[in-house]
């Protein structure tokens, strides 16, 4: 590293990949919820919370990724810290979709586990990056 660059390249790659994977995850989970509502008995008061969690997660993802990119590229710890906070919320919502949905299909388990792994790795890299920026 001859030009003292503090921005973390692995974090940047991971954020980029995470964005693409999240789009796929959102569409796949939405399609599976629609499939479940047609094939299984899925009354409205059980369907509503699941859909709400999915959409809230999608809405949170956009600022989370933006703040992550911005913080990493401008080497500022405040946006990155905010992004880390939003990641924690996304993790909670992902755990809901993994464990407490009305119907958890095997495909749901796979996709959510992958997303959780990505979030975990990302959080670790963000913490390292914040430590690098602060010091």
């Amino acid at each position, binding site marked *: 590293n001859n030009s003292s660059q503090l921005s973390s390249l692995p974090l940047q790659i991971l954020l980029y990949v995470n964005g693409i994977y999240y789009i796929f995850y959102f569409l796949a989970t939405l399609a*599976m919820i629609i*499939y479940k509502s047609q094939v*299984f*008995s*899925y009354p409205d008061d*059980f369907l509503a919370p699941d859909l709400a969690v999915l959409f809230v997660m999608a809405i949170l993802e956009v600022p989370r990724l933006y703040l992550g990119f911005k913080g990493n590229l401008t080497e500022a710890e405040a946006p990155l810290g905010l992004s880390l906070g939003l990641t924690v919320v996304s993790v909670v919502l992902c755990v809901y979709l993994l*464990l*407490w*949905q*009305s*119907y*958890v*299909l*095997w*495909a*749901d*388990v*796979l996709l959510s586990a992958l997303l959780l792994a990505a979030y975990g790795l990302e959080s670790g890299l963000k913490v390292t990056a914040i430590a690098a920026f602060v010091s």
Partner: protein
Amino acid sequence: PADTRDAAQARVRSAPAPVTDVARLCVCDLLVAQCDVNCCCDPDCSAEDFSLFTTCSVPAVTGDSQLCSQKAAVYSLDVEANPPERIFKLIDQVNPSIFCIHATNYEQALYLKSPEIPTPENFDQLLDKFGGATFSAEPDSWNLDTDTQNPPEANETSRYEYGAPVQTEDAFLRLPSPVVSSWCSDANPAGFLVNQATKCIRSVSVEKCDSIQALSMLFYINSSILASVFQVNITVQSIAVQSLNGMRTLVSSSEVLRLPMVLDELCINAVLGVNYHITHTDTGEIIEAAAAFVLGAISKEELSIEQSFEISFTQENTQPVPLSGNPGYVVGLPVRAGFQPQGYPFPAAFLFAALALSSNKHSQLTILQSTSTQDCLAAQGARAPVLFGYNMISGCKLRITAAMKCQPLAQTLLVVLKGQSFPEYVASFGNSQAQDVLDWVPITQLHISEQMISHTLQSSCQIPVSLGIEVKWTKYGSLVNPQARIVNVTATITTTTLKQLPSGRERIIPITSSVVFTDISSPAEPSYKAWPTINIKLPFDFFYPFV
């Protein structure tokens, strides 16, 4: 006392818990405390019983196969062993699909809902919901009494499609009909263009005569039908009053509404039948609605009466000729037939003249209807319409005495067999109009004499003994939706010689008439789209210097 009653109530309040353990479930265990034959999961069977089985009728009991992994109880018979013994294995069945259910957090997901046990608290609510003759899964959309019923918008009711319920101000045009039992249910809507006739029984009592809504005329003409931008009121077309012995008389002043009332221990002006006539345009808008009533009297002893309802739809400015198919004949509908009125030239020569073939409902192709008396001469001319696709045979017995004269007998038998007005033309399609001459097939009449050997007394007269109508039809049109089309109709009269009987003797000969439908359609030839052709044309001066 109080606590035993509470305990009894607590026992009653909960239904028995459903059994979900696959090892204990047995579908073929029908006899209690006895071994069911070939039922390998029956707990009442002993090892000796198992050795007598040939196969297991229920090889496996599994839970919901959509779960990723579930327990399954597998039963099989080991026929190698001597004596045969039953093998019971509890295995884990795995669903390999990626969309198998890994877990559910919704406890009623995989089981049927247990019904509510009636208690003094919820009894009234359950009775409201399930106490009638019918109940639907979604009562709110069909409930006629809710105040929150939104009236449908005008654009939706402008055009009706076939089968769509005819909407009125409050709900739908009712055509009471028997639903599960013969009792009238008022929740049956009339479908547009669906001609229906229903009969059902309604429970009545003379004391509550004027309070039972379904007995008063107002109930049936109260609401107006929604059609495009305006509403069509149901007018009273005619009122017929039926007396207690069944005689009906038309009432001249049909504008006055006659409401039921009690008179001399009878309930008069009770509605016994309603006949709706709805007129519509060819684009599906209802323009007129009329109802013809039959009112009658109910005596004190009667606890129920039979009401009959009918609805028919006619297009404006057309004669209400019922179609037998559109365009091909529908199996079970009557074959339409007609005559060529006198004075018109023979159709084949004049293709441009519109010949009016009279085809009213009563000149259908009909066949003799067998009666219980089976006597040809006593038959009152009862005839049954020939229904397309249904081969029919009917007959009667003719008692010939010595005194009968042959010639009048032959004429009478001809009328018995063919009916008063045997048609000359049969409609080729179910919707053939009278103006289209080419759509009508002439009936070929054949005479066959039974005596094939030349009899010396050829002048002895012949009487017809059988009429056979053979209708040849073919499949017409596209491969996926073939339409039935009548191509040829042949009516064959078979005659036999009437031998003179010695006086005092009598003979009984059977007279038969039959209709046979034969399918003469040639096998379908699928046609394929032509290969695209490449049209290449060279310009005319292509070979300029050389040509």
